[in-house]
């Protein structure tokens, strides 16, 4: 089959319940080995979220590692929505973690604005070495 670049993509939700104002891991990529050539890694992510009563914002954070212990890759923007609706968020980002084995990435969402929990309905997270 020739050369295959390291990549992982999945739709496995780690947590579906977003407790109000609590940073929650929603998606995690499986480990990829980027052990040669310090390749750029492209992250592609998507989530559909049913916002709880009063919740009108989502903060999206991308972390290098399987949880928030790793480095924050993006700036963690907060996006505003109409409260108590179902919305989608999506995007892409790039990272160059260096030459490393078992690199994982995590997508963490935080709902804000109200007091109710929100629910993640579906999502996707991909890490692709370029």
């Amino acid at each position, binding site marked *: 089959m020739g050369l295959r670049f390291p990549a992982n993509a*999945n*739709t496995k939700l780690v947590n579906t319940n977003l407790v109000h104002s609590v940073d929650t891991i929603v998606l995690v990529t499986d480990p990829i080995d980027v052990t040669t050539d310090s390749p750029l890694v492209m992250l*592609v992510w*998507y989530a*559909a979220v049913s916002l709880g009563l009063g919740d009108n914002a989502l903060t999206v954070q991308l972390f290098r590692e399987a949880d928030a212990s790793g480095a924050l890759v993006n700036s963690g923007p907060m996006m505003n929505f109409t409260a108590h609706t*179902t919305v*989608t968020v999506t995007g892409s980002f790039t990272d160059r973690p260096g030459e490393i084995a078992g690199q994982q990435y995590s997508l963490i969402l935080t709902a804000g604005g109200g007091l109710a929990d929100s629910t993640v309905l579906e999502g*996707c997270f991909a890490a692709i070495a370029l």
Partner: protein
Amino acid sequence: MGVRWPSNGNSNAGGLVIPATVPTVALLSAPLNLSIDNQQVLLQWYLAVTWGGDITSVVLKIIRGSTAGGTLLNSGVTVQVTSADTLVLGGCWTDIPGIVANQQYAVTLTTAGGVADSTVADASIALIAL
């Protein structure tokens, strides 16, 4: 150039009408040949849609196949929209369709809440075998 993995992408200039309440293929990929090795396919899709004047929600389905009758891959999420607004929807998904030739994928939209037609303003879908 070496080995190139199966992939394709196509974009629509827009203008496609989404009749109210009718499941409509808003995006259709070109065929992809996955004739060896059961590769995972990463789908990336983007739609800008101007909703009808009384439309308040849309059901978004990612389909393995070229018609609304194909295999549903995602949960068929319902997203709330603001009538007469233009909204960008996008995301990613993954699939392992097996060893198959001429695999196509579709994104269908089904609007609700009113009787007015909606219009796709911009659209793109990409398939990348990982």
